[in-house]
Structure formats: structure tokens, C-alpha cells
């Protein structure tokens, strides 16, 4: 179907070693308690130290959110919707309110749209920084663990000023947003994004140009373009394979049609490309934040929306930090949805885990695995 994974020369380990039972391969269980991060188990079959088979075993954080939403009011569901990925809460929240508004036929005021976009972009940076810091843990690069988590607080402070909470905002409600911009926010946002862009250059110097990283990431975990599309990957994983698909451009929502930004892609499809897509997106998000605080129109932030969900069907989707997040929402006239199917970016990208790991060495597993930006809580829901 696609190009085979990069062949790895078998020089150090004899692949013909057999165990007592006569099997040529060895099955390992990685997780759920492991020295990286994440509540996820991989059942890996190795031949020598080459991975020949991978079976993800998710579900350690499966909380039955789809059932819970069916039993709750649409407003009460908002905190539940956010929890699968609290590092990217507002984007998931946006998918929910977008599909509700589509059924209700409510139009959000423009200032409300801009505020939503502002929080979404700050969240995208925060999420990518969290991903980067855990990448540091996976690769044993302590500086890259500390720095992104420190700089993430720059945006957490801003978001806290705007919404009143550090990471779980519950800020987007059907019809608009809950709070208006606090005084002095624009200047602080411009200052902090400019400072952060300077920091990103330092990240490049200490990590992304560093041979300690490039030699471990280049050519590892290759996912071809055709395979990525066929497996249904989205987000940075898809863009790292050279596809310029981004819902912010392809199906512009909120304030994105009025903003100027670029979709970053890398052609190679290896771990390094996916990592660089994250870096580029953070730079673009900084630009978007500055544009928003400059262009934000005056006016109301919220329009009255009914608390019931009329009869109807909607498929609302947004581009979250880890890819497309969508709701298939069926309303039947009450205040609860009849069915709310919740598909998140990590869940879509879960199909790519075996594809990027097969044929690599076991020692390269952390690099390849975490480059997908797989957040188990989001995938299990």
C-alpha cells in the first residue's frame, strides 16, 4: 500500500536467537507505568531489537464521556468536554459549542468569535509546549523538560487573566464567551509573545539544531503521505507528512477567515518533521495572537442562546492542537443530546502508532511514539 519502513541494518543483534518455546520473537509490555509519561500500554513484539509488531492497549483513562454527555444538560457537559485534554481545553470546548450553535442556529457576535480564537491559539501554544517538554523527558533532555514548562506559564498567566482559571476554562458557552478582555491584556499579550518568539530561537539552538536530537529523530518513524491519509491521521502528524490540511484554512470558522497565517508542513514524514511542524505552529500562533489583540472589534461578547438542543444533526469540527476534533451531535428537542459522538485528534492519530513504530529499533520507540503527540486521555475519552 505504501513505501515500506526504513530498513534497519541488523548488525548488532542476531535475529535468529530463539527462546525455549521456539519462538523467534519476544513480546514486551511497555507501560502503563513507565519512565516516560502517559497512561498507555504498548504491546511490542521484537525480533532482536527490531519492532515487528505493535498493538496499542489504550483505555486506562476511558471514562465513558459519551455516555455521560447523553445524561446531562448541554451546559453542564462543558466541563466534561474539556477534561479529555485539559492542556488543550478551549479547542475541544469550541467543537462542542460549535456543533450546538449549528443546531440551534445561533450566531455568535464578532467580538465573541475573536475572543474564542484568542484563547484557542493560546491553548495551541500551551499544548505544543507541554508536548515538547514531555518530548524532553522521553529523550532524556532535562533542559527541554524545564524550559517549555516554564514558558508555558507565560500563556497560562494570560489565560488566567482572561478566564479566571489556569487550564480548565469552561470559557466558551453556546452564544459566545463568559468574560470580556481584562484591562491591559493587549499590551501584556504583545510583550509576552515577542519574548516567547525570542525563546523559540533559543529552543532551536539548544534542541532542534542540536545533533543530540537531530541524529535521533531524522529518518525515524517515517509515515508516508498516502499512509497518513489512509489511516485517517490529522493535525501535526498529517502536516508532518507533507499534507497542508488545516481546518482553520480549509473550513474557516470563528475569526480565522479574517486573520493572516500560514499552514506549516514538512515533507519528510519522520519524527523530526513532526517536531518542526509543532515549532512552526507556535510561531504562527504568536502572530495570530498579536493580530487578534490589534484587530479585535468592539461590541457584545455573548448572545442569548437557548438551553435546549432542538431536533437536528450537526457535525461540528475544529482544528485542535492535536488535530481535528469533531462532534457528531443529534438533538431531539430536550436539554440533553440524543447522541454525542466525540472524536478527538489523538484518537484519530492512534492508528498511526503501529505505522510509525514498525521496523524501528526498540531504542527509537520513545522518539517515534511521542512525535505523534498522542495524549492518551484525549484518545480514551
Amino acid at each position, binding site marked *: 500500500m505504501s513505501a515500506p519502513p526504513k530498513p534497519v541494518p541488523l548488525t548488532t543483534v542476531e535475529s535468529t536467537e530463539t527462546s525455549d518455546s521456539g519462538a523467534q520473537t519476544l513480546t514486551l509490555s511497555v507501560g502503563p507505568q513507565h519512565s516516560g509519561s502517559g497512561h498507555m500500554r504498548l504491546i511490542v513484539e521484537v525480533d532482536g531489537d527490531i519492532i515487528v509488531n505493535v498493538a496499542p492497549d489504550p483505555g486506562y483513562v476511558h471514562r465513558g464521556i459519551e455516555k455521560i454527555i447523553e445524561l*446531562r444538560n448541554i*451546559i453542564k457537559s462543558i*466541563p466534561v468536554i474539556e477534561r479529555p485534554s485539559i492542556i488543550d481545553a478551549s479547542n475541544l470546548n469550541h467543537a462542542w459549542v460549535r456543533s450546538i450553535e449549528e443546531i440551534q442556529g445561533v450566531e455568535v457576535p464578532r467580538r465573541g468569535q475573536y475572543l474564542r480564537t484568542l484563547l484557542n491559539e493560546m491553548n495551541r501554544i500551551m499544548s505544543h509546549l507541554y508536548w515538547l517538554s514531555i518530548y524532553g523527558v522521553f529523550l532524556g533532555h532535562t533542559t527541554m523538560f524545564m524550559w517549555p514548562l516554564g514558558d508555558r506559564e507565560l500563556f497560562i498567566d494570560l489565560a*488566567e487573566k482572561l478566564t479566571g*482559571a489556569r487550564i480548565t476554562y469552561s470559557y466558551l458557552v453556546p452564544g459566545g464567551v*463568559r468574560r470580556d478582555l*481584562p484591562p491591559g491584556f493587549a499590551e501584556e499579550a504583545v510583550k509576552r509573545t515577542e*519574548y516567547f518568539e525570542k525563546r523559540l530561537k533559543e529552543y532551536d539552538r539548544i534542541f532542534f*539544531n542540536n545533533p543530540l536530537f537531530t541524529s535521533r529523530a531524522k529518518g525515524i518513524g517515517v509515515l508516508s503521505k498516502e499512509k497518513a491519509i489512509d489511516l485517517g491521521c490529522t493535525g501535526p502528524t498529517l502536516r508532518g507528512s507533507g499534507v497542508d490540511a488545516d481546518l482553520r484554512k480549509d473550513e474557516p470558522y470563528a475569526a480565522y477567515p479574517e486573520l493572516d497565517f500560514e499552514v506549516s508542513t514538512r515533507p519528510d514524514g519522520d519524527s523530526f518533521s513532526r517536531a518542526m511542524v509543532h515549532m512552526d505552529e507556535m510561531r504562527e500562533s504568536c502572530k495570530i495572537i498579536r493580530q487578534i489583540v490589534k484587530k479585535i472589534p468592539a461590541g457584545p461578547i455573548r448572545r442569548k442562546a437557548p438551553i435546549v438542543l432542538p431536533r437536528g444533526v450537526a457535525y461540528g469540527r475544529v482544528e485542535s492542537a492535536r488535530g481535528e476534533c469533531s462532534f457528531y451531535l443529534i438533538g431531539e428537542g430536550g436539554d440533553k443530546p440524543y447522541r454525542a459522538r466525540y472524536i478527538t485528534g489523538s484518537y484519530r492519530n492512534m492508528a498511526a502508532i503501529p505505522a510509525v513504530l514498525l521496523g524501528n529499533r526498540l531504542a527509537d520507540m520513545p522518539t517515534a511514539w511521542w512525535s505523534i503527540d498522542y495524549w492518551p486521555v484525549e484518545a480514551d475519552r
Partner: protein
Amino acid sequence: MAPIVGKAKAAVDISIAYLTGIRHLFHRPYTLRFPQQRYAVEKGYRGRHLLHLDRCTGCGICAWICPEKCITIVPRGQRWYPQYFYGRCCFCHFCTDYCPEFALEETVEYDIAEYTRDRLVWSPERLSKPPVKKDDKYVFSVDTIGGASQVPRKEE
């Protein structure tokens, strides 16, 4: 020649990485030393609730909108008041938003850890006490000389 060029580039890149790290030895400290220095949480932060007993009518809308069923309405003499179980509150403050009498309010108090589970039940009387004023004045500033750092907030 190509391998030598590659090796030289790698050596340069790795030296730059080290120098970047070393440069940060001379930066101002980034860490907030928590018990001594406290982050200046601004008004509007969604911490624990403050209940105004005189305004509360005991209507129970807060208990209805609560996504977690953390609020129970308990009798106090002739009147009814909400009682919070903070082992379950998610601090979404929908109760504050939906309160028709503005009897609930957000406070900046967030450090309410306890040794036992039953201490997490906050009675209306406990909720009605305003939080103890703590010396939280440190904010993060990006324009300090010698690197971004925690500084005491400027008083206006």
C-alpha cells in the same frame, strides 16, 4: 570532504547548544519560591466560593446547574443554604454565574488541601467567611534586566 563538513557542523551546533545553556546560568531566577513568595492571583480567579448568607434565598439553582452534584442544600433554622463538598467541585463557577441573587462570589483562595475527606465538606458558615489575606504579590515579568523573572507587583 562531506563527512568532515558534517562533523564540523555538528561540533559547532553542539557548542552553540552548550553555550546557550551556560548563558542561562547568569539569568535571574525563574522559579517562584512558593511558601515564601506567592503568585499574585488577581480578582476574578475562580478559587473557592464565598457565600453571602444575607443574600442567599436557598433556591437551589446552584445545585441544579452544578455538573458534579457537589452542592447540597442544607437547612439552617428557617432558611436553606448551599453546602459544598470540595472533594467534588470542579471550580467551573457556573453556580456563581447562574445565581439570581448574586449570593455567590469567586475568591482567590486555592490552597484548601486537607488530611481527611470529611474536612472537605464546607458548611454554609465556613463558606461565608472571607479568605484569609495572604501576602501574594509576585508576578512574572518579561522586561526585567537579566532575563524574565518573578518580581513583586507594582503598586498603583
